């Protein structure tokens, strides 16, 4: 290994095959599901059957009779080990087990512990819980004014200083009310040539990684280790430490690989529960949820979005007003941040001087909603890009031309007032138009099957400010190890980080060993979410590698080695320590600059360190006799800065688009009285191979994020942004009907076709 040379050594930008690929496909990769500890008990959760109710009593008599039951734990047991058992990243509103009330069907009420999971499951069916049922509220718009109150008092966590003002607020379901105002929207609306207003809706869906939530805790009473499938091990550590009243260094969190996360495995899911259980029984406790139970754990916000634009007769948008109701479910989780951090992008990547945004995070009696790939952006893009096409068509302007006329370009202010930089919306649209052959005439067909095409472009701001720390360890033989808290959940982060280290140290990426999250060893990382890791952890890793480099150079100088001599590393150690011994440890820590927005106006001169852009174009067929939609071509173009690993970036884009395709056409959580009625993959359909478009193209534009590591930035979510509205726009192009609510099913399309013919069908 030689110290860094100015010429690129070719590790970054190379499509290195994933470092863990062979282990994963040969079944050797480690997951928490495989773990068994001596004396371990398995827990099965007893869940609420009432959407909203006071918890009166729990009868354990019948359940205790099942042979093999070790213990059944309820709220009283939890309170003995954790007197204040409420957790959450934004609000401390979620109890480890229900205490006084239950707030959604499926909420954990008790846990049966046994050595045999089948025994635990059988006993769990026999626990009898008595509730005093209360009225429930399910709709987000209704919840804003409803007399039915889910939480009597708001309990901000203190983790985010900008939520402090909510402390003590009572008797409302509005957990957060985010506002932004720029310019003079009222005046612009009054003076506008045209005003367009539309309302859109999205449905509740969920992540469904193939590995459901699983956590295992073991403790000796003085320290605790939690093995968990989590994207945020550092947060788990500090939150468990807080709940137990222990210093951080007595809580250890270990994460091997995740079988998918997509934003579900964040903050606290099962960790607090297994920690409390382990303390109660003083044996290791593992809880692994079934596929069905995922439906009761975390979901994506359903939403209602109202968007209004003032437009001049030549198609310039002079003002935009956005009002969004986010259905947060029974517990806040990270919902308030979705309302706020995505809320400020509600007007879209457009250059609009006068903007007003109101974004409300609502509590309802449904399973909680939190982060899901896109973090609220896909819902916003669904609204503003459907709205864009409706305006363009009404004014008889080509949809692409309309977008180009209003697009936000580098150097101009976004709705928060921050001047955007390295935001490639124009480059993405241009490339998309070329790949779609947009300028060429398009044959829509004449038969019962009609063809159409549509485009959409969306963007996202990286959540800020967040911190990442990394350590690079060079051993005496020159081999290199990276300690990094970023969790590889299938997005290829191990490989990307190895490539960054390798680029700096001028070694092959395949030789870098990446140590997985172990908070006793790997340093702090905010979390693996929001496409932040390539940028933030990438910087920290790069700094750590550079630090190691500098230390090696200093060692060489100390040993009197002339500059440029290129002595092998192992030789340096040998000369220093007289044998194969010692380490060189490089550290790096990164937090980007940030300006907190004004509380009333939402304005800031530095709201985010980088913007992500994703554009999608779709060509499809509509069977006008049945409403079936068949996607012929789906083209995704994104701005990810420089691709650290082009092959992985491509699969991240197509994977994100396919996931969003499911949310657009086939997925919906069905409810009856707050009970999920399709809680299984047999009845909740995610896309399979036969659902893929005939042709899928995923490309990146050639850009450089000037403040990113090697010019790179996030890529994991960009493929989700434009999919839904591109499809709705293509359907309108094909058959002239506008769908404003997701999912777009054949029945919905058929109803719209009948209504458009003035032959509405009743059901």
């Amino acid at each position: 290994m030689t110290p860094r040379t100015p010429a690129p050594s070719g590790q970054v930008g190379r499509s290195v095959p994933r470092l863990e690929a062979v282990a994963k496909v040969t079944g050797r990769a480690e997951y928490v599901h495989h773990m068994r500890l001596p004396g371990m008990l398995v827990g099965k959760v007893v869940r609420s059957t009432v959407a909203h109710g006071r918890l009166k009593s729990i009868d354990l008599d019948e359940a205790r009779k099942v042979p093999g039951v070790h213990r059944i734990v309820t709220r009283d047991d939890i309170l003995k080990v954790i007197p204040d058992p409420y957790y959450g990243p934004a609000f401390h509103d979620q109890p480890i087990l229900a205490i006084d009330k239950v707030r959604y069907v499926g909420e954990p009420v008790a846990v049966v512990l046994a050595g045999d999971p089948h025994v635990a499951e059988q006993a769990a069916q026999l626990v009898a819980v008595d509730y005093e049922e209360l009225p429930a509220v399910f709709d987000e718009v209704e919840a804003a004014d409803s007399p039915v109150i889910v939480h009597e008092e708001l309990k901000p966590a203190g983790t985010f200083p900008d939520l402090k003002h909510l402390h003590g607020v009572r008797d409302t379901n509005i957990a957060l009310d985010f506002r932004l105002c720029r310019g003079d929207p009222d005046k612009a609306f009054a003076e506008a040539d045209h005003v367009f207003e539309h309302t859109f809706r999205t449905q509740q869906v969920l992540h469904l990684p193939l590995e459901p939530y699983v956590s295992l805790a073991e403790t000796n009473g003085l320290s605790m280790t939690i093995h968990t499938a989590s994207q945020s091990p550092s947060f788990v550590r500090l939150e468990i430490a807080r709940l137990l009243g222990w210093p951080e260094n007595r809580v250890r969190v270990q994460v091997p690989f995740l079988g998918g996360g997509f934003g579900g495995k964040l903050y606290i899911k099962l960790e607090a529960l297994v920690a409390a259980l382990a303390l109660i029984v003083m044996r290791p406790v593992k809880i692994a949820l079934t596929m069905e139970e995922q439906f009761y754990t975390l979901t994506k916000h359903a939403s209602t979005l109202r968007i209004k634009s003032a437009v001049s007769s030549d198609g310039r948008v002079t003002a935009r007003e956005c009002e969004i109701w986010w259905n947060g479910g029974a517990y806040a989780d990270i919902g308030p941040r979705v309302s706020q951090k995505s809320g400020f992008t509600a007007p879209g990547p457009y250059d609009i001087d006068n903007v007003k945004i109101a974004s409300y995070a609502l509590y309802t009696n449904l399973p909680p909603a939190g982060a899901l790939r896109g973090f609220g952006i896909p819902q916003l893009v669904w609204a503003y890009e459907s709205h864009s096409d409706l305006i363009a068509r009404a004014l008889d302007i080509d949809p692409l031309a309309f977008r180009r006329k209003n697009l936000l370009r580098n150097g101009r202010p976004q709705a928060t007032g921050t001047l955007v930089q390295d935001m490639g919306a124009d480059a993405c649209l241009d490339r998309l138009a070329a790949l779609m052959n947009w300028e060429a005439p398009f044959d829509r067909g004449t038969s019962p099957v009609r063809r159409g095409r549509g485009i959409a472009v969306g963007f996202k701001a990286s959540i800020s400010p967040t911190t990442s720390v990394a350590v690079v360890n060079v051993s005496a033989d020159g081999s290199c190890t990276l300690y990094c808290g970023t969790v590889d959940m299938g997005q290829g982060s191990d490989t990307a980080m190895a490539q960054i280290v390798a680029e700096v140290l001028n070694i092959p990426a395949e030789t870098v060993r990446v140590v997985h999250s172990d908070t006793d060893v790997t340093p702090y990382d905010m979390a693996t979410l929001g496409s932040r890791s390539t940028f933030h952890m990438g910087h920290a890793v790069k700094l750590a590698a550079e630090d190691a480099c500098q230390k090696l150079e200093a060692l060489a100088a100390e040993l009197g080695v002339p500059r440029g001599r290129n002595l092998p590393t192992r030789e340096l150690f040998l000369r220093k320590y007289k044998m194969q011994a010692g380490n060189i440890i490089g550290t790096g820590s990164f937090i980007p600059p940030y300006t907190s927005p004004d509380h009333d106006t939402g304005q800031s001169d530095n709201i985010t360190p980088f913007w992500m852009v994703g554009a999608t174009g779709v060509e499809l067929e509509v069977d006008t006799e049945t409403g079936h939609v068949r996607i012929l071509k789906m083209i995704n173009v994104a701005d990810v800065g420089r691709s650290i690993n082009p092959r992985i970036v491509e699969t991240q884009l197509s994977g994100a688009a396919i996931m969003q395709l499911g949310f657009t056409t086939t997925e919906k959580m069905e409810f009856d009285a707050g009970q999920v009625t399709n809680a299984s993959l047999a009845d909740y359909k995610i896309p399979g191979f036969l659902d893929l478009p005939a042709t899928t193209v995923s490309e990146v534009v050639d850009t450089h994020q000037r403040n990113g590591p090697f010019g790179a930035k996030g890529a994991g979510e960009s493929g989700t942004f434009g999919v839904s509205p591109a499809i709705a726009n293509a359907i309108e192009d094909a058959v002239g009907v506008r769908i404003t609510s997701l999912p777009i099913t054949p029945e919905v399309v058929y109803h719209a076709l009948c209504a458009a013919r003035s032959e509405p069908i009743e059901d």
Partner: protein
Amino acid sequence: MKVSGQIRVRAPREAVFNALQDAPFFASCIDGVRQLTEIDPAHYNAILETAVAYMKFRFKLLIEVTRKRPPSELEARLEGTALGIVGRLTATSTTRLTQEADETNIEYEIEAALTGKLGSLGQPLLRSKAKEMEREFASRLRAAFERTPEPPS
């Protein structure tokens, strides 16, 4: 889940009302009600045993008559738990009787919900059963009035 319908029986309204608000008679019109016991004139316990094909279900029920306005209106509430599996059944029913010549028209509206494990994956199964029980109830009720001019009071 909402179920609503109409049943006509050849009997005067007062007689029909008396029959419907007589718990043992009412229970006899539903297939599978066992061990009906009165707690007080407005509250009853019962066991409901039902099956869809080879799949059997048992529910422990608490029934409350919430409103009685003779001879025209009857409202009841039902709450039950499944035995052996987590499942909570709730239902509220509203019944209105109108006299039409020598017949009584019974209009009913039932709102039912099934939650818990049984409600999660067993929903379509029990919905089809609900429809079947509705048909069975109607035919038993009609038959009861055809059998005797005055049903038991």
